[in-house]
């Protein structure tokens, strides 16, 4: 019972239809058998390229997308078994912030309304107490209480992301799912938000599921990192060893693609050859096999499963 969230065998399939009558002819496996867990006050980083299913994982955990299969335990309680009333109260413990700060806040609500809404909904505060709490939250995320009457469009991207964080914090969640929270921000603003998130974690003990496509950012903020490729987790390790000792060929390619801000370091970029397989078709073997330099006959026939190769380091590859 030491984990806050335990995800096992999470699947999300979308039916593929074809023909005049739109018969279901197959499934698009957006997320296929993903398992991981997040401890209290920990950050689990989820990296992968666009279309790898990382956002679907994030939303499925909150049941914002209904998973096809799998188990999601929040402090031992099965979220998928909950009815809508139970789920509503469970949502107090889980919040989400999004990538695009421009579309993630209702443009017709003031900052006060935005931040107080979750608290009102869960009957956490009312009247002047509500007002005080909103002020405190604004201060916590580095905004002043004068901003309370303003609307989202009067703020810059970074400030909006702060409002979003304050809104998420208002119900004192145990975990926040962060879906690319800094990808749309400028470098200098990105650093401010990352620092804020780290501070909040230290002070409040919140856990994060941090979803991003940029390796450096994920590595900076996460304790543990999971790498996704085409709906599957291919490698999970703590953030230090994923950088210094990554084992999966895809992770290695991903790492080598990260530009290093030092003109004297000449990295060797591993260029991934070959086409991304079409997930709409039935796939045999390892999904990365067609693009992998170390591919063997076994890789083409048998899909590797995620297994522990070192303490706390899991890889899904036959060659490791």
């Amino acid at each position, binding site marked *: 019972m030491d984990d806050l969230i335990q995800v096992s065998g999470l699947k999300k399939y979308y039916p593929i239809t074809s023909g005049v009558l739109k018969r279901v002819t197959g499934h698009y496996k957006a997320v296929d058998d993903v398992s991981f867990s997040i401890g209290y006050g920990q950050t689990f980083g989820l990296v992968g390229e666009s279309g790898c299913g990382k956002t679907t994982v994030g939303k499925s955990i909150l049941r914002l997308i209904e998973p096809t299969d799998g188990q999601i335990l929040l402090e031992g309680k099965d979220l998928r078994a909950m009815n809508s009333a139970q789920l509503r109260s469970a949502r107090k413990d889980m919040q989400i912030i999004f990538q695009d700060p421009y579309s993630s806040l209702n443009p017709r609500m003031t900052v006060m309304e935005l931040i107080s809404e979750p608290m009102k909904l869960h009957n956490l505060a009312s009247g002047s107490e509500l007002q005080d709490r909103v002020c405190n939250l604004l201060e916590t995320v580095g905004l002043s209480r004068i901003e309370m009457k303003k609307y989202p469009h009067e703020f810059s991207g970074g400030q909006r992301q702060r409002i979003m964080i304050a809104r998420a914090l208002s119900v004192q969640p145990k975990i926040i799912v962060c879906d690319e929270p800094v990808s749309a921000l400028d470098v200098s603003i990105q650093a*401010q938000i990352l620092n804020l998130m780290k501070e909040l974690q230290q002070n409040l003990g919140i856990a994060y599921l941090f979803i991003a496509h940029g390796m*450096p*950012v994920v590595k900076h903020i996460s304790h543990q990192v999971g790498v996704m490729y085409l709906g599957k987790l291919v490698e999970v390790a703590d953030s230090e060893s994923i950088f210094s000792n990554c084992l999966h060929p895809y992770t290695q390619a991903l790492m080598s*693609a990260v530009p*290093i801000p030092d003109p004297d370091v000449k990295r060797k*970029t591993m260029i991934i050859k070959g086409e991304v397989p079409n997930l709409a078709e039935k796939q045999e073997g390892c999904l990365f096999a067609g693009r992998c330099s170390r591919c063997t006959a076994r890789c083409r026939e048998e899909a590797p499963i995620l297994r522990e190769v070192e303490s706390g380091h899991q890889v899904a590859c036959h060659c490791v």
Partner: protein
Amino acid sequence: MKQETNQEYLLEIKDLTTAFLFDGKPVPVTVNVSYGIKKGEILGIVGESGSGKSVTVKSVLRLLPSPPSSILNGEIYFHGQNLLTLKEKEMQKIRGNKISMIFQEPMTSLNPVYTCGNQITETIMLHQHLSKEEALKKAARMLDLVGIPAPESRLKSYPHQLSGGMRQRVMIAMALSCEPELLIADEPTTALDPTIQAQIITLIKELRDSIGLSVMYITHDLAVVAEICDRVVVMYAGMVMEIAEIRDLFHAPLHPYTQGLMQAMPRINQQSEMLYNIPGMVPHATQMPTGCRFQPRCPYATEVCSQACPELVDAGDGHMVRCFHYEKLRKERVQNG
């Protein structure tokens, strides 16, 4: 301040001030921007949103719609010709032929209703007066050059049938099809995944080496700059803040903004608890601070910074910087080793 154009440069921008309409009034978004690019060089233009980096290069090809934009001041010399005074007809002979451009969004930059082949051959037939068959052959060669497998069949593809990386390659093939002297790349990899970004960067470097192309590479990512560029122009709030050779910039940045940007980046090869952060945010074009434009966010700012705007000066070896206190930064660095 008018002088002879610098012979060293293939293209030179001088004192370019471009304005946009805000509430009906023209407000400058770039102020007295001056820099040049040498033959065979990859010049990086770095800055955050609102720095005016993209506006400047679009002014070079005169691609900004007017209104709302207008060029208030400045010259852009290409082979001794001022592009800003050319007739539209003459400008058309330069665009896509001598200078070409690729854009940030490969998804929307290709016309969805025509095949890639159609769009590439169109340029070739226009500028090189080749027949349809010859143009198709050349287009296939170009696709091959940018690393697209099975080029003949790809020519018949529509843009929506290609992935983002492929589309950007098609854009590059199209841009290079008339052997231009200069390629302007406006955030060409920002919308792409890291592994695709690495491929495109490698491709551009190879092209520079193999066909001696000059590239103006616009990006907000200093790490990408370190990968690909020979020289860098750092812009902030519509002004050039620093111009330096790549090593000088990374080892000895002289502008507090450049220094801040470098420290604010999370690095994959370093572990740090907290990142340095530049306080505040980029000012809007209509609300520029007095004096130095970076002064409200600058840790080195003094009285003088809010009173006057510093000039872009040579701090030695062609390292240009726009700051009153660059000597102080240099000294600090020497002290810290």
